[in-house]
């Protein structure tokens, strides 16, 4: 395996990249805002033991991310389905 290359320079920010590539400040700001909108409220958690990485998003009730207009999938719905299945089996047994 080849030796990895050491990156010594400063971490390039969006402004550095924009300046080098010739992107206008207003467009740069627009793009940064777009990213911030996506990452706002996102919590990154990593466990030292397992090295696992979790992304959690705080969602407002009724926000599009919670699925407005969609039927809620909750435990009660699943329980209902199970119950129905059990009833039908009982019904079969009584035939």
């Amino acid at each position, binding site marked *: 395996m080849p030796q990895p*290359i050491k*990156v*010594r320079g400063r*971490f390039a920010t*969006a402004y550095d990249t*924009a300046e*080098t590539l010739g992107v206008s400040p207003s467009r740069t700001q627009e793009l940064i805002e*777009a990213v911030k909108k*996506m*990452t706002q409220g996102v919590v990154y958690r990593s466990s030292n033991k397992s090295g696992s990485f979790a992304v959690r998003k705080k969602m407002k009730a009724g926000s599009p991310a919670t699925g407005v207009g969609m039927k809620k999938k909750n435990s009660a719905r699943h329980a209902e389905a199970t119950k129905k299945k059990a009833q039908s089996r009982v019904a079969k047994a009584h035939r």
Partner: protein
Amino acid sequence: MPRQPRRKPNRASPKRTASTESAFLNIPYDAAFENLYLAYIAGVSAFGLKPRAALEIPTSNRRLERILALIQECKYSIHDLSRVEVDRTPPPTPRFNMPFELGLTVALEKVVIPGHAWIVCETMRFRLKKSLTDLDGTDPYVHDGTVRGLFRELGNAFVRNQNQPTVDEMMKVYRILRANFKGVLYRAGATHPFNARVFRDLCVLASAAADDVVLN
């Protein structure tokens, strides 16, 4: 009168801050490579590097001279030799751009820019030994044609003392880039991402995402 010892002039030394570095991307520009194209931009940005590519070059300029200048501006270069097969579009031809630009880089590194570091990426293991025997002794980074595989190989190829991105962080940057991808295309009035304006926007987006994901 005793002579006073001469004081050294108090010169305020200019504040030295490390400069940022760029990575030249020598990759195929075709629809089948779109995912990896975005992944290269995301991965390079996650390492705190500024992605550069021949795409930036306006068609009016003499392309070869600008490519040479661009390679010299960059501290690193990544050469993807995944497209060595003959394409289906008539007349059937292989793509010579990537091996050619790799050759230019190797020559520049030997003669003009000794500090330049370059790596070769491939989709298939052992294919480089057949396609480019002149590079015998150079191990390519084999990414299997997958985004995660590419991030794994970038993590093997580059190291940072601080803020070394994990594969998951690079994936996060990639997802942010993917989510904004259609908007960027629409705004540029483009149908594919292989043009200068889209490339620039994607690079800034990826850098902004890397700032949020890797630095914070």
